[in-house]
């Protein structure tokens, strides 16, 4: 039945339902992707569009591509996007007000003209055209047929693309590599610096957190013998995050005083 319908140039009703539900949804998602402020939301919407497209592929007898779409795009590529977003900052949201004067209206008008032209061309190219369908081509299975093409007719392109992939991986590694501008200080250098520093008090190393305090957590500054908290005993990261707990309540004398 499906094959006959394809031969007539029309898809069957289930596919039409699928299309008319998912198609507008994909377009709306794409529009929303443009309008949301947060990049994460854009990424989620794009992932949804890609899944929609995977379904469309499968519906159009391209089962292999549909699976690859889900695995490569929605799986790998979108995860890469999210990973980078995490690196760059999930919080990074941009204001949607345009800074380049007149760019946005021009872009929208131009893009609409472009879309109109495309639609008109598609219409011109497809109206009154016979539909062949993939029944014959997929006779031995879609994956087998694709493999036959890839390793015969397109084997050269396949090899080139594989070289491209390796090059891209190398390129990404080179770009991500962090060059060290000055030599990493050795233990000897660090020791020398400690003894030549402003105060010999640093020579013996920094105090650990929680020492002499009535609390052992890393976010509690150590108490020096005179009872004052030592800021040097706390990791700089914790300090920057503001996750340091005031150690005064844990001072021995304070507790002793309370008991008395």
């Amino acid at each position, binding site marked *: 039945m499906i094959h006959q319908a394809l031969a007539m140039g029309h898809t069957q009703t289930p596919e039409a339902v699928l299309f008319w539900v998912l198609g507008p949804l994909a377009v709306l998602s794409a529009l929303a992707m443009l309008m949301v402020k947060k990049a994460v939301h854009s990424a989620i919407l794009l992932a949804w569009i890609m899944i929609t497209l995977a379904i469309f592929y499968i519906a159009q007898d391209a089962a292999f591509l549909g699976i690859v779409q889900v695995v490569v795009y929605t799986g790998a590529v979108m995860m890469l996007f999210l990973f980078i977003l995490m690196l760059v900052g999930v919080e990074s949201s941009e204001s949607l007000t345009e800074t*380049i004067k007149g*760019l946005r209206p021009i872009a929208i008008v*131009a893009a609409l003209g*472009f879309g109109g*032209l495309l639609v008109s*061309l598609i219409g*011109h190219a497809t109206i009154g055209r016979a539909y062949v369908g993939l029944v014959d081509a997929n006779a031995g299975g879609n994956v087998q047929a694709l493999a036959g093409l890839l390793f015969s007719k397109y084997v050269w392109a396949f090899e080139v693309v594989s070289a491209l992939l390796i090059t891209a991986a190398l390129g990404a590694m080179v770009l991500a590599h962090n060059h060290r501008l000055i030599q990493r200080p050795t233990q000897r250098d660090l020791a020398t610096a400690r003894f030549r520093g402003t105060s010999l008090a640093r020579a013996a190393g920094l105090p650990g957190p929680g020492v002499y305090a009535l609390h052992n957590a890393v976010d509690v500054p150590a108490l020096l013998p005179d009872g004052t908290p030592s800021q040097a005993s706390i990791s700089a990261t914790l300090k920057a995050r503001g996750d340091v707990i005031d150690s005064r309540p844990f001072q021995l004398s304070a507790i002793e005083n309370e008991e008395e």
Partner: protein
Amino acid sequence: MTSNSLVYLIALPLFGAAVLLLSGRRSDRWGHIFGTLMSAGSFAVGVSLFLKMLGNPTGERALTQKLFSWISVGSFQVDAGLLADQLSICFVLLITGVGTLIHVYSIAYMSHDLDRRRFFAYLNFFIAAMLLLVLGDSYLNLYVGWEGVGLASYLLIGFWNQKPTYATAAKKAFVANRVGDMGLSLAIMIAFATLGTVSFQGVKEHASQASTGSLTAIGIMLLVAATGKSAQFPLQAWLGDAMAGPTPVSALIHAATMVTAGVYLITRSNFIFDLAPTAQLAVAIIGAITLLFGAIIGMAKDDIKKALAASTMSQIGYMVLGAGLGPAGYAFAIMHLLTHGFFKAGMFLGAGSVMHGMNDEVNMRRYGGLRKFMPITFATFGLGYLAIIGVPPFAGFYSKDKIIEVAFNAGGVKGIALGTAALLGAMITAFYMTRVVILTFAGSKRWDDKAHPHESPFLMWAPMVLLALGSVASGFFFTHGNSLRNWLAPVVEATPSHEGELLSPAVVSILALVLVAIGVGYAIIKYLLNEVPQVAPADVTVFTKAARKDLLQDNFNEAVFMRPGQSLTRGLQVADTKLIDGAVHGIARLAIGSGNLLRKTQTGFVRSYAMWILAGAIALVATIWVVTL
């Protein structure tokens, strides 16, 4: 004959100049003595060479010396060679002799000048350059000396260049000389183009093969050169201003030697002028015009040095006239040149002596009655005066009368016109020279009490006495038995011609003496018997006003050459800035403007470039749409 000692003539003063200029202040104390010794040494070499030449037979007297091969390009071969023939040696003796006397004079005259050493260096340099001019054996070698004396003249006129007017005078002399120098270089080029050689010997041998037209061209160009260097009409305007230089310079360079280089050039080139009658006639006419021109200016000048300068101009006019009269006149031109060298140098030194005693006052109207205070100066100046106006038996009588006589005998209307001009010049000369003498030495005193006229020191009056002796005796000595004429005969090929004689020597002498007496008498009436005002009277004729202004030569030059030249340069400058610069800047502005327009599209924002890509894609799709539908 070759002689190895010729080079020492030039080398000694050149060495002196180099030492004085290079040693700096260290030689301030002995520099003037050294310079004088170098000049005297050159004179000694000159005398020994002269004696050597005298000992040789007539045809073999010329001495040559090849120094080195200077230019060797294909067929163009020029050696740096020296030639001392009978003509050159006259000049050598004049230059080194008078030059040495003036060196001696300058020791005293410049004794209060801080830059005396530099002055002597320049003088030595001048002597060297002038000797190279007269000793060069080709036009090219002569040209080197020619430029050298021009430079020396420039340096010495502007010696007191702290005064802007003096520096301007030096510049004026230099520029006027350049016009003449261009004539000389053109003459050399034409000679090389037509004759293939520039040596005197070569030109002389090949001159007959060249066309009269090219010979005339060479002759005219040589005449232009002579007018520049010798202050002849129409390039005479610089000589009066050149008196800005120290008086010894005026005596040596602007009276006795350098300004006579033009006469030397014409006489030396006799083989060209004899074959180019038109050029020769032009020479004679220029000489006649200048002798009257200078004489008229001389009548109106109150500045003693400028009056003498005008007189120099006039006397060189006589020489040029003589040289323009062909073989008959060359010897007399040279004779007048030599006698003039004595008496005019002597009179300039006398003028310097007067100025020395009068606090550098130059206005003759503020002199008067100086003969009592400066007896030696008066005597030497007076002897020079008698020589220049041509009273027998003084030097001028022999030389000038001969030129007048030759002019009359040149034949036809030309002879009568030139002779009359020369006679008239003699009368005017008598008038203005008498005026100078009366205003300076006779009459009542017209100076104020600040001046204390006194006789000059020995070192100054000794050279004046020697020059005065020369101006007394040289004429007789040169004429006696036609000695100078016979001496020069191998060079200028003088052929004594008495055929078609219009006036006999006796008639000419009597005529000249009568006219001179008229001139002297009129001057006595006007300046000795009448009171001379201290300030030049303003209610004079237009003619006198013009003569006071050098017969408007400066105005003429300014109107004809300077103003149009300035307009031309201004026009060219406008064309340069507006047209050429405009075109260049216009192209640049076009590039800048279009760049500025295009720059607006380059915002630097990736997104605007993406917009352009999108626009390109739209255009592409639209094209496809148009093509397919």
